[in-house]
């Protein structure tokens, strides 16, 4: 029987009651008395010199409180970057200034030039149209290779190049890798694009800044995945407000997918303007603004070469990637194509020699940063595509080629600086073969052919690094922050519990899953535990939620704090039971003396802590509240095997995903239903990237896919029923829950499976010249590939 409570139970998501009944409290639902509204004037050209910004007419319009331009922010800090990458030659990356409002130049369509604050939103928008910006349009830098090849046009004139960094990893391997490739029995080469994506959370970004002058207290309500990080970045680096005078609240957040990690100019603006005007200031992004101001994802152009010996052992891997940074460095942008991508290039394989080169490039486009998977989908896509291509070139079964090269002994130190603690890649592959019914694929293919469709099968195996991660390690790699997580477990007098966590839930289900852990540890009902998150005023300093880290890192902090609670509660119970602390056992919500029938209930112990009439005050303090900060000793390494079956219409090139199976190893699982939902969502996004989503610019830097009329999101009918299995479990060895993280796996594992399946379908239809199609594999692209 599956468990019905505690760790391992599919408890229903308690937060869904408010999300599904319209009673959530999102940032746009927050209205502060006296609030004014801001409308941003955004650049409609990709690159230009600001000759003047005339605000006089706008400032005189009805309801306008003030019009701000870039010059109002002289002396205010630059929007900071949180990660420093050192290049192949030991030089720091180029780090241009990122003003709150554009100053001197505009650098992408959507770059804010001015901001109008007015009594009403309508008045702000009306006046924004009256701001006259005289901009001398400059040629735009759009293509990454051209941007690096020539310095004729520079996104940032002061740094003298469009190259942010040229990173080599591991640089000392470079010559050995070159030699192994030149001497290999077989080399498979693939050039590919990892398409630029727009995250498109359902809730657009919103910021409400307010200022209480008497106490000199600023508050920012914002759509963030990590309010403490925003407080630190904005307070310390941009506006110069100390932490105790700045509160950041991220209430219910309607999806993040990475794009709400970063500190954005609009947040700093609303906080700044509220102080300047002594009025609360609110900004709610329109969907059109979101397309041109939310950080985009992916956008890599890669050449990958895989060397094999005559027995098909992988001997070396070499990649060269151009990674688009966009016009400015977003908060974690430099880390994505380097430490979140290069370190994953070993994949599931024991390839002994690996060299990864990444050139990060500035262009006149929206900044690019982490998006669900962040670097790991890019690594997995190129590796699993090149392995698939190699199998085809060598005429061997793609599963067998993978198995031959799988890492089978753990812990395993890769040649790209990480150590996998556990895994069993053959087990997930075996499980995949079973749940995807691969034995009967040829029957299904014939059935499809009978209907005039080409059926293809795509296999993928993936590894990812989650639970980001040891602070001392990421510090060496350039992170300007620690990456621990925190929790305060506050046991109330009657035994109910409030857990204040530094993690942030924006759809993940923490409010349900976290109590399952605490309830299991204490033997009390889950509904006695409530999760508090999202407000710097009442949660301990934590780094927030991204990189599938919440349960592995934040959950571990919560476990540690709960252990402290148990230790103290046992002392109280020992006193009440007049027994030795060593003899006290906690089971099913009661403390008992081992080997006797003497016991005291959980609630009696907690009450004693707060009403300490009969209490060992000489030994321990009253109260029952503990905080823990947890800093992991390693990343976690979820892995799995995915399978996609597609049907291709040979007349039109249209691809339908007709079957999808995912066999994941997430280590231990707290709530299987939530885990499966995370995989479903990730697979849907991966199918979106593989077949539909494409953020496209033209050569002048105009955004072509600036609305849902042109940017194709996956919809229900694009996604088949996804068969999900997580029964292969090799628990993480270094966190107390043995969990690995599941939030990004679906988006990492699915794109190569889909494209491998499309190629297989075309090959089966006799289009043997088609060895690759770039994502998204739209009908037009697939049809064109078939034409040759």
């Amino acid at each position, binding site marked *: 029987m599956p468990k019905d409570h505690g760790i391992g139970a599919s408890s229903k998501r308690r937060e869904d009651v408010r999300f599904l009944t319209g009673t959530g409290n999102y940032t746009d639902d927050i209205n502060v008395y006296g609030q004014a509204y801001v409308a941003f004037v955004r650049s409609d050209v990709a690159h230009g010199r600001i000759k003047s910004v005339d605000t006089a007419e706008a400032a005189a319009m009805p309801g306008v409180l003030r019009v701000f331009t870039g010059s109002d922010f002289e002396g205010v800090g630059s929007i900071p970057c949180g990660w420093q990458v050192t290049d192949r030659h030991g030089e720091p990356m180029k780090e241009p200034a990122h003003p709150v409002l554009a100053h001197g130049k505009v650098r992408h369509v959507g770059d804010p030039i001015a901001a109008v604050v007015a009594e009403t939103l309508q008045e702000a928008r009306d006046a924004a149209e009256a701001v006259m910006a005289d901009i001398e349009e400059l040629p735009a830098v759009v293509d990454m290779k051209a941007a690096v090849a020539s310095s004729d046009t520079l996104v940032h004139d002061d740094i003298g190049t469009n190259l942010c960094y040229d990173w080599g990893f591991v640089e000392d391997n470079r010559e050995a890798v070159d030699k192994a490739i030149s001497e290999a029995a077989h080399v498979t080469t693939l050039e590919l694009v990892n398409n630029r994506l727009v995250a498109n959370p359902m809730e657009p970004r919103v910021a409400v800044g307010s200022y209480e002058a008497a106490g000199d207290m600023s508050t920012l309500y914002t759509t963030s995945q990590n309010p403490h990080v925003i407080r630190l970045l904005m307070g310390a680096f941009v506006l110069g407000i100390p932490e105790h005078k700045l509160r950041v609240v991220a209430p219910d957040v309607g999806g993040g997918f990475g794009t709400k990690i970063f500190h954005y100019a609009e947040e700093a603006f609303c906080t700044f303007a509220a102080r300047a005007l002594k009025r609360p200031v609110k900004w709610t992004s329109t969907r059109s603004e979101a397309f041109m101001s939310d950080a985009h994802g992916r956008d890599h152009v890669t050449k990958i070469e895989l060397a094999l010996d005559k027995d098909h052992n992988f001997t070396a891997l070499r990649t060269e990637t151009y990674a688009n940074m966009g016009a400015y460095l977003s908060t974690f942008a430099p880390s994505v194509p380097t430490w979140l991508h290069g370190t994953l290039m070993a994949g599931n394989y024991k390839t002994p020699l690996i060299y990864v080169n990444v050139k990060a490039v500035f262009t006149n486009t929206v900044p690019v940063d982490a998006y669900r998977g962040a670097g790991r989908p890019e690594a997995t896509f190129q590796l699993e595509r090149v392995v698939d291509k190699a199998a085809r070139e060598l005429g061997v079964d793609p599963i067998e080629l993978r198995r031959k090269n799988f890492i089978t002994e753990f812990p395993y130190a890769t040649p790209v600086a990480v150590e996998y603690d556990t895994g069993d890649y053959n087990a997930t592959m075996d499980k995949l073969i079973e749940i995807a019914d691969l034995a009967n694929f040829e029957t299904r293919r014939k059935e499809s052919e009978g209907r005039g469709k080409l059926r293809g099968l795509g296999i993928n195996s993936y590894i990812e690094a989650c639970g980001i991660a040891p602070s001392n390690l990421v510090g060496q790699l350039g992170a300007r922050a620690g990456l621990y997580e925190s929790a305060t477990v506050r046991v109330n007098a009657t035994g109910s519990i409030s857990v204040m966590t530094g993690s942030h839930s924006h759809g993940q289900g923490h409010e349900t899953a976290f109590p399952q852990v605490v309830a299991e540890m204490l033997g009390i009902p889950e509904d006695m535990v409530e999760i508090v998150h999202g407000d710097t005023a009442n949660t301990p300093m934590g780094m927030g939620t991204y990189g599938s880290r919440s349960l592995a890192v934040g959950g571990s902090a919560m476990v540690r704090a709960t252990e402290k609670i148990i230790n103290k509660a046992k002392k109280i119970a020992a006193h009440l039971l007049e027994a030795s602390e060593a003899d006290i056992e906690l089971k099913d919500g009661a403390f008992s003396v081992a080997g006797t029938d003497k016991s005291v209930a959980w609630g009696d112990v907690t009450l004693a802590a707060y009403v300490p009439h009969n209490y060992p005050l000489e030994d321990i303090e009253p109260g029952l509240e503990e905080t823990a900060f947890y800093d992991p000793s390693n990343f976690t390494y979820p892995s799995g095997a995915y399978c996609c079956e597609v049907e291709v219409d040979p*007349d*039109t090139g249209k691809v339908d995903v007709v079957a999808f199976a995912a066999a994941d190893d997430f280590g231990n699982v707290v709530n299987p239903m939530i885990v499966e939902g995370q995989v479903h969502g990730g697979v849907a996004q991966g199918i979106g990237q593989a077949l539909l989503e494409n953020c496209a610019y033209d050569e002048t830097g105009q955004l072509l*896919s600036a609305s849902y009329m*042109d940017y*194709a999101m996956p919809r229900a009918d694009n996604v088949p029923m996804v068969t999900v299995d997580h029964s292969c479990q090799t628990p993480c060895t270094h966190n107390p829950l043995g969990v690995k993280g599941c939030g990004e796996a679906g988006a990492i594992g699915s794109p190569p499976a889909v494209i491998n399946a499309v190629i297989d379908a075309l090959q089966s239809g006799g289009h043997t010249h088609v060895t690759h199609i770039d994502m998204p594999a739209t009908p*037009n692209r697939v*049809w*064109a590939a078939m034409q040759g």
Partner: protein
Amino acid sequence: MYAFEIERPTSVADAVSALSADEAQPLGGGQTLIPTLKQRLAMPSKLVSLAGIEEMKYVRRDGDVLVIGGGTTHGRIAREAAEHFPGLAALAGKIGDPAVRNRGTIGGSIANNDPSACYPSAAMACGATIVTNSREIAADDYFQGMFTTALEEGEIVTEVRFPIPEKSAYMKFEQIASRFPLVGVFVAKFSDRVGVGVTGASNDGVFRWTEAEEALAGNFSADALSGVTAPPASDMIADLHGTAEYRAHLIPVMTRRGVAAAA
């Protein structure tokens, strides 16, 4: 949105009168105009909503002609045309989503003449008559290119009359984002002729593929199209979602499928 005045007349006569004001613009179901206004891409001083004109909302059969009021929603057409003209009902039933179908109207669509609208292909294939408050216009004369029609300022589409074919089908190949037709082909077989209307594809808006019509008139089967050359790619739209060559390729593909599916 910018501020505007709105009038909600309840008769065609009152609507025509209201539209005589300077810069007045008719508002049908609002499925194009309202998003345009929200993005501040249009600034009419006055909107005249046609949604309250009950006399423009009907689907009725008049002999061999299906007569549809200009104010009739796609959803209603999908339901009420099904018995008489299943090809047109199916077309209407696949426009947008339920919210769009319950607001958007055939008159609004025909008057806007978006190059990727669905109805114009059926109107062209069937040789429909567009009826306005002042005259009757043959479909061939009415559609005059992208977003361009024979309508005069202030003229309202009050009715569309579709000769009912023996068999018909609409084949829509969707643009993946908007799900408007990248290429849509309406095939209509009458006792004495065949109509093939193509939407979404051409720089000149909806058009009749007359070579296919002639080939199919003698032999209404997909095979009859094998010798017919596709319309030239040089006339086709090219954008993010499809090259001109791809659109040109899809026209015969969708036409063949329409012929095979016609019922």
